[in-house]
């Protein structure tokens, strides 16, 4: 039996969940927190999103999704255009080619690998930005960004896990 129009629409909406959720998180990360006591830090939300979906459901966020996310990040953050898409594409490619490694692995392993991936991503981005602008990023800011990215993985992973349950139900 062929699925109806509404079923198609429902399937499409569910398939767009990963990218939509990631875009929303990226926008939320750009919102200024003017409350006292908040540190000025800049976690690599896009790397977290791309990493999670590449590990758990690579079919849900293709290279086009990663590229779009990176482009929006560059535009919002004022970084040179093309840097974030390149970093995200490399992250996605590395994880997708090593997909078999992650099958059935516990959370701690994926978290540990994220630590390595995020380190490579932040250094690559810093080098690309330095090459394009001639300005080196502050090592403290880079370290803060890296640490926050790694620390944010468990809560974001939980959120994406909920979204994944929705997707799996639909499948």
């Amino acid at each position, binding site marked *: 039996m062929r699925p109806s129009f509404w079923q198609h629409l429902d399937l499409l909406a569910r398939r767009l969940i990963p990218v939509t959720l990631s875009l929303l998180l990226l926008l939320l990360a750009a919102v200024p927190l003017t409350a*006292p006591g908040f540190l*000025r830090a800049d976690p690599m939300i896009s790397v977290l999103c791309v990493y999670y979906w590449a590990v758990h459901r690579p079919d849900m966020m293709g290279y086009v999704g990663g590229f779009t996310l990176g482009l929006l990040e560059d535009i919002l953050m*004022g*970084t040179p255009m093309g840097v974030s*898409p390149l970093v995200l*594409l490399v992250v996605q490619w590395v994880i997708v080619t090593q997909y078999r490694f992650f099958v059935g692995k516990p959370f701690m392993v994926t978290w540990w690998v994220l630590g390595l991936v995020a380190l490579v991503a932040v250094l690559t981005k810093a080098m690309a930005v330095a090459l394009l602008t001639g300005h080196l990023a*502050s090592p403290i800011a*880079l370290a803060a960004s890296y640490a926050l990215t790694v620390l944010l993985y468990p809560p974001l992973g939980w959120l994406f896990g909920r979204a994944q349950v929705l997707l799996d139900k639909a499948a």
Partner: protein
Amino acid sequence: MMQSNGQMSRVGAVKVALQRFAFVVLVLSAFTLMLLGKADTLVVDRMRTAVTDAMAPVLEVLSKPAASVASVMNTVRELAHLRQENATLRDENLSLLRWQALARQLQAENQRLRELTAMVKDPKPRFITARVVADSGGVFARSLIVTAGAQHGARKGQVVVSAQGVVGRLTEVGHRASRVLLLTDPNSRVPVLLEESRARAILMGTNRDRPQLAFLKAKAGVSPGDRIVTSGIGRLFPPGLPVGVVSSVDDGHIWVELFIEDSRLELARILDYGPDGIVGDPNAGPVVETAPPQDGAAGVAPGADPDPRPGPTPEAGTVAAPDTGAEASPPVSVPRPAIRPARDGR
């Protein structure tokens, strides 16, 4: 069954090939964008502006809950320090009253001197106040997105200030939103001078919270606590806007602590000098105002009108930029560390 399996593997192979092709194309696109951006082409700028413009309403909606949370947290914090802050404000008020008397005296004197010398009047700005809806964070670049665009009168290059001092200038202007390049961004260069010695320098962003002073001839005379204001050289920034104070001098590097805290900004004011810009109308005549301002008029200014008329009572803590002598300077509050009457011997 065998035929079906073969078909599936063919589909899988095509899918993999397509993915690889997409990957290569997208990587090449990323490199192309980097090269285009480096060449500073109009296409990249327009793309950036168009996307920022499209995202501005979403960011505005998202920023409102964040602003509400910040407001509640600020209220709680203020309540906790109410008594202490009250005592500080009383002391500060006494000090400011002394400054106000002095400022009025100097203003009247300036006015008389300007009349005597038939000095050409500086252009007065109009203000566009906009909400800050996005903050670039600060690892690789330092900028803000504000909800004022071309439809509100914003133009590329206009100066952005807050109640404390200079914030930066507009580098991208869309229809309804604009990007502000902060003084701390590595691409920011602002001509400034040391308020007391009048020595000129360039304030360079370093991607850290404290920018650096460069091209300063007499470094020996600089000491922590010296006030920095815009010099007006190059006509990008009007003269006399408060920027910050020298925070430290080490190994020939002079670091500046800005009056503004860009991560705490909720509202920003864009200075609009009209189509003539900061240079002003070349046909402008000499100063014609004769009467010194009435009580409470010293801080009239957010949205100050060129027409002399009784203005509203200024907000608490707002006075015209001190000691700049520039009527065009926007009224900004005097940052607390900068008030040092004892040092001036007044």
